[in-house]
């Protein structure tokens, strides 16, 4: 008796399976499930563009409509990855143009995208609907013009924190008059001014426009007229909020804000003047997301604003909020799920910003849904971390950046080992952790022992020896991404735990003590890994014992990549170099 479900039935069942993680699990059950799943998957997510070839992806998922790719390692965000390292979008776009011309959506993160790429997209994908580029670089506004002019059904064009060669604001005028499908437009990272009339025309013919994020050059006046044209906005990123307006203009702007009945997300607010904060009051109660990273107002003004945001779930703010402001957030924003506090650089101005560990403690006490924190602070204490862990065992993401490397608990002068122990022990579902401050190997023993659900870990200026790495690699079962800089371990732990690396997506190590010989050995022993030695200042002769600057190791089915610059060394590129007599124990 054939016990297999007919594929039509399977297809129907799988149509309810959305998340890629679930779909990946489904595809492992048996051959027929694998086949049915792959033929029905529409959204493909490749988290490391070098882990698999574009052709293989296109072949496996013929019905792919949406492709998401990530390129450079996360530390590229902080300038640790030299220019030219890689992460090129072109091979993917070229392959998809040929094999998946029905592609509708492309989302790229930390990749190099050129104008040629954009032109190719415009020319090849007739049904193209969405282009979302996050932290990408390599293209100019000309490429944007190509997209604008050709993609007749474009819904989303979002440039999030990209580095764009800005040749002027003309690109916006290339959207044809026939384009009425726009749902989301984000050009907040561009520098030059777009023509207001073009923008107004575009907005007025886009009845489905839900998300609009302007760049700094769009004036406050212009904002008013845009809001009047698009009162249905759900997400708004303003331009600069500091122009001087006369009273009439201000009241018109205020009125425009009150018309935004659907607004849930607000950002931009560059340089917002304190006297304009009240303009935002009308939208506050509806907001679930507020990004004040560029809002240079002081604590009292922030409190006025935030005390009205009772539905806020996501808050990004500068440390100008201070402990007192965070207390206000704690009492007003009970729905808070994500908090990020960034440094304002106040020290440079010789002002004292009263943001300490207490601010985070207050929020952790009062906000029951708090799951994700990113907190920059001058110093911290173990006691605070213990309290936070006790208050909020449901935390999933804790990224603490004590700005001063090696800073101990400022009350006890002890390392922060015990504090992080409390975090990993108490927050059993913790998936992402960034540690800082003074930490010994003990901290990593705790993390290895308790951080069983930990997927991503970021470490800088910490630990004492190879033990730290050993604890992590042998203890953290779910570890997927590990990035470490400036920590004092050598080869031993890495080589001993080599097998672990195949279960992880990637490992980044820079300014640590790993030797060239170990890299060679690892490359030789672990063929499914690409071991890249990134060395911008290589010595003429590289003895095996010499430490390497940066190492990026990732698992791959694609084999060695062919687009490496000269400062990246891999064993495949240099097979003539033998392997030293270091042994993997």
């Amino acid at each position, binding site marked *: 008796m054939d016990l297999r479900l007919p594929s039509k039935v399977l297809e129907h069942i799988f149509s309810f399976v959305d998340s890629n993680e679930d779909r990946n699990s489904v595809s492992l059950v048996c051959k027929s499930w694998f086949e049915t799943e792959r033929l029905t998957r529409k959204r493909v997510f490749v988290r490391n563009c070098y882990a698999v070839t574009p052709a293989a992806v296109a072949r496996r998922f013929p019905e792919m409509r949406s492709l998401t790719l990530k390129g450079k390692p996360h530390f590229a965000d902080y300038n640790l990855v030299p220019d030219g390292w890689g992460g090129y979008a072109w091979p993917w776009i070229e392959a998809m143009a040929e094999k998946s011309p029905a592609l509708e959506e492309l989302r790229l993160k930390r990749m190099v995208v050129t104008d040629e790429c954009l032109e190719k997209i415009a020319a090849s994908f007739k049904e193209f609907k969405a282009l979302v580029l996050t932290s990408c670089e390599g293209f100019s506004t000309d490429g944007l013009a190509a997209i604008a002019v050709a993609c007749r059904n474009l819904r989303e064009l979002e440039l999030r924190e990209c580095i764009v060669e800005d040749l002027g604001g003309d690109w916006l005028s290339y959207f044809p008059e026939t384009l009425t499908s726009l749902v989301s437009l984000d050009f907040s990272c561009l520098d030059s001014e777009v023509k207001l009339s073009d923008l107004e025309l575009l907005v007025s013919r886009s009845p489905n426009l839900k998300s609009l994020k302007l760049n700094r050059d769009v004036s406050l006046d212009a904002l008013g007229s845009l809001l009047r044209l698009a009162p249905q906005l759900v997400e708004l990123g303003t331009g600069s909020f500091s122009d001087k307006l006369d009273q009439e203009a201000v009241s018109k702007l205020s009125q425009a804000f009150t018309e935004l009945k659907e607004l849930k997300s607000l950002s931009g607010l560059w340089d917002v003047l*304190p006297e304009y904060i009240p303009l935002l009051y009308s939208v506050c109660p509806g907001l679930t997301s507020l990004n004040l990273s560029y809002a240079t107002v002081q604590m009292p003004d922030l409190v006025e604003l935030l005390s009205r945001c009772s539905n806020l779930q996501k808050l990004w703010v500068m440390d100008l909020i201070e402990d007192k402001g965070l207390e206000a957030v704690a009492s007003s924003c009970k729905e808070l799920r994500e908090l990020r506090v960034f440094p304002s650089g106040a020290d*440079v101005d010789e002002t004292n910003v009263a943001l300490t560990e207490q601010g985070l403690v207050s929020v952790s006490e009062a906000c029951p849904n708090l799951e994700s924190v990113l907190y920059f602070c001058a110093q911290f204490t173990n006691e605070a971390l213990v309290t936070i862990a006790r208050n909020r065992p449901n935390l999933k993401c804790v990224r603490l950046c004590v700005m001063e490397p090696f800073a101990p608990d400022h009350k006890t002068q002890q390392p922060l080992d015990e504090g992080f122990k409390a975090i990993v022990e108490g927050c059993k579902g913790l998936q992402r952790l960034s540690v800082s401050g003074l930490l010994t190997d003990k901290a990593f023993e705790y993390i290895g022992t308790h951080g069983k659900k930990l997927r991503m870990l970021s470490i800088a200026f910490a630990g004492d020896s190879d033990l730290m790495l050993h604890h992590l690699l042998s203890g953290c079962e779910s570890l997927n991404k590990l990035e470490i800089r400036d920590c004092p371990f050598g080869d031993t732990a890495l080589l001993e735990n080599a097998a672990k690396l195949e279960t992880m997506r990637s490992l980044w190590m820079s300014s640590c003590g790993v030797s060239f010989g170990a890299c060679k050995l690892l490359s030789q022993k672990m063929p499914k890994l690409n071991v890249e030695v990134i060395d911008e200042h290589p010595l003429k002769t590289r003895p095996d014992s010499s430490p390497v600057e940066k190492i990026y190791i990732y698992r791959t089915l694609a084999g060695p990549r062919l687009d490496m610059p000269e400062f990246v060394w891999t064993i495949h590129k240099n097979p003539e170099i033998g392997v030293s007599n270091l042994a993997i124990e």
Partner: protein
Amino acid sequence: MELDLDLSLSPHTNSSKFGFCFDLNKHCATEGMLVEVVHYEKTKQTRFESMFWLDNMEEDCYVPKPCSFSLNGQPDEEDEDPLESDSTIVDDEEEDGEVVGWPPIKSCMTKYHNYRHSRNHPYHHHGRRINIPNPTATIIGLRPSSSSTSSPRSSMYVKVKMDGVAIARKVDIKLFNSYESLTNFLITMFTQYQNCDREDTSYKFTFQGKEGDWLLLGDVPWKIFAESVHRISIIRDCPCAYTRLLF
């Protein structure tokens, strides 16, 4: 005379004005200097020296001991020369010895903060209004602004490089009132770490002024010096262990 011991490290590209300082006072027994880590010139074996926790090093390289973090001030790490740990965490070409990528802030944000802290920015001191002509009653919801004007900067840090010493220091010129007090202080500061007898050594002090010319200390009256000095260089005759760093 109180000087703050600060190790000034700031992210590399865009020379971010974050310039966070961590206070070595908490970690080192010594007081009173602004220490700046300077990157070795490329010709030297910089890659090695820049990492201070290495084993298996070539003999002739200066090898700081592994884990020589006297910066953390832990009691069992005595006899650690702070310089050993200082000569580290250096990465790039930047003469100022900045640490790349720390604190970990994305470039779009550092770009914005640089802009804010620059002279061009109308609201130079974030949110506090300066020189606004009549912030007017016509603006709705006008509330008293949150504070005063900022105080003028009262310190003037100048880089001091001693010949043969890899690490430059920064001192606040405003804390001195004469050449003698300055030179005495500098000599004391450097000899503390150099194992050099100060009596045995003759020092020559030169400084670079606004115009870029190098002059001998004392060539100009103190007051003019104090306003125009950009950097100071000390040449001395006593060779010591640290000159090994150069070769």
